[in-house]
């Protein structure tokens, strides 16, 4: 018989390394036509990091995403970066990019101020223009300001900066300290069906609501969450490297069972409205935490469906059936 159940799990997850320094540096150069180049030492590993970093630079400069070209991942050309790890890119590298872009913007403000006959601190950059606060009609284009700055004043608009999240060493006896500067939070809820004659679990739907601070690019955050859940589903139900005498017995994609398109449930993803004042434009991060609560949500739903507590992952059909039979034997 098919039994249905639901289960929830929430989680918290830190951004960046545990206490250890994990700095990022960035350089932003505004070209004389108002476009810009961002140099970052991080690597695009699929998350969309470069798109997000470009959006952060664009936001700080008041231009559009497409105006910023991102150069990355070449030790001969790009500044140091701790890399695509620990869900840190948007937050740590993002902060470095924002600071670098702001430095470049300061140079633009200094050159635009005499053009507009105001003080630099009376200016803002938006919609590809540098304009007087409160008087948007009084403006020059960013290209005009950059050209004037570089080719007339001889002061090219370039900014470099770095960021390292502030932490406090942990006490070796108690762990007390501030290992991370910020954390994200999430809840996932699973709707499952369990075949109580075979132990097979079919995840029908997962609702996932995640906090990532400000989503710099909501589409990419959703993609992270959906992908993280697919890893969570595999962790919950199917995936396991098996050994016999120290030799892996299933080191291939035929016998290592990761979810295919037919094994993934319908996913409903939402973001919590949140803002972290320590992140770039309020952003935190989204990469790893997406995979964290899925397995517990699913095993809690299995309990709800058939009343058995799976304490050992993965919850394979055989394991679930064994638990069901043990429960029947007791009752």
């Amino acid at each position, binding site marked *: 018989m098919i039994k249905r159940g639901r289960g929830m799990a929430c989680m918290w997850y830190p951004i960046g390394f545990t206490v250890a320094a994990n700095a990022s540096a960035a350089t932003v150069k505004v070209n004389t036509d108002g476009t810009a180049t961002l140099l970052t030492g991080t690597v695009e*590993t699929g998350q969309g990091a470069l798109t997000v970093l470009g959006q952060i630079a664009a936001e700080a400069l008041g231009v559009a995403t497409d105006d910023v070209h991102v150069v990355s991942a070449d030790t001969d050309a790009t500044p140091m970066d701790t890399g695509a790890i620990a869900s840190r890119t948007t937050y740590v590298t993002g902060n470095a990019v924002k600071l670098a872009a702001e430095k470049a913007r300061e140079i633009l403000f200094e050159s635009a101020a005499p053009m507009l006959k105001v003080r630099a601190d009376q200016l803002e950059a938006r919609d590809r223009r540098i304009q007087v606060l409160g008087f948007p009609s009084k403006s020059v284009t960013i290209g005009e300001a950059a050209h004037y700055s570089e080719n007339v004043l001889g002061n090219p608009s370039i900014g470099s900066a770095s960021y390292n999240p502030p932490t406090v060493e942990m006490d070796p006896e108690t762990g007390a300290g501030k290992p991370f500067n910020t954390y994200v939070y999430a809840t996932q809820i699973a709707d499952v069906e369990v075949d109580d004659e075979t132990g097979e679990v079919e995840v029908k739907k997962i609702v996932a609501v995640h906090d990532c601070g400000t989503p710099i690019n909501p589409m990419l955050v959703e993609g992270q969450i*959906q992908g993280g859940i697919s890893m969570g589903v595999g962790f919950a139900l199917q995936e396991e490297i098996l050994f016999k005498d120290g030799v892996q017995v299933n080191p291939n994609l035929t016998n290592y069972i990761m979810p295919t398109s037919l094994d993934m449930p319908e996913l409903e993803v939402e973001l919590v409205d949140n803002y972290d004042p320590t992140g770039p434009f309020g952003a935190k991060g989204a990469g790893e935490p997406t995979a964290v609560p899925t397995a517990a949500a699913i095993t809690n739903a299995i309990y709800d469906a058939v009343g058995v507590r799976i304490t050992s992952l993965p919850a394979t059909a055989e394991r679930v059936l064994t638990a069901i039979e043990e429960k029947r034997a007791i009752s």
Partner: protein
Amino acid sequence: MMVQLKVNGELRSADCPPETTLLKFLREHLNLTGAKLGCDVGDCGTCTVIVDGESVNSCLMLAARAAGHDVTTIEGLANSQQLHPIQQAFEEHGALQCGFCGPGMIMSAKDLLDKNPEPSVLEIRDALSGNLCRCTGYTKIIEAIIDAGQAMSEENTPA
């Protein structure tokens, strides 16, 4: 041995050892690197190309076996004016993350939509089950294929 076949509408030929797979032939002899090697045994689908209108794992097919046949690869979908509707939809939906599964995924989608322009979600999932993706959870890929199917139907409907 000399292998001659039609790739993306053009006659191509190259001399290759008989044990050359179609994947190796495309990548190393024709420099068409869109199809990828992900597992080399037909599990992951990153090498998917279309031969005579049917999608196949090019890592499991010998180039010699494909000789004289009509092969379509990811490089044959767009033209100088526009992306193929599936490529367009994948881009708009952010359906690809690391992108390594992308060319194979898009070729499987093309095989499906060429035969069934309005597939159900289950039919799409079934059509993609030979293309593993570790980044996306397949969600945005499925959404993109639904959109692409609609776009392709509209293209084919006389105004």
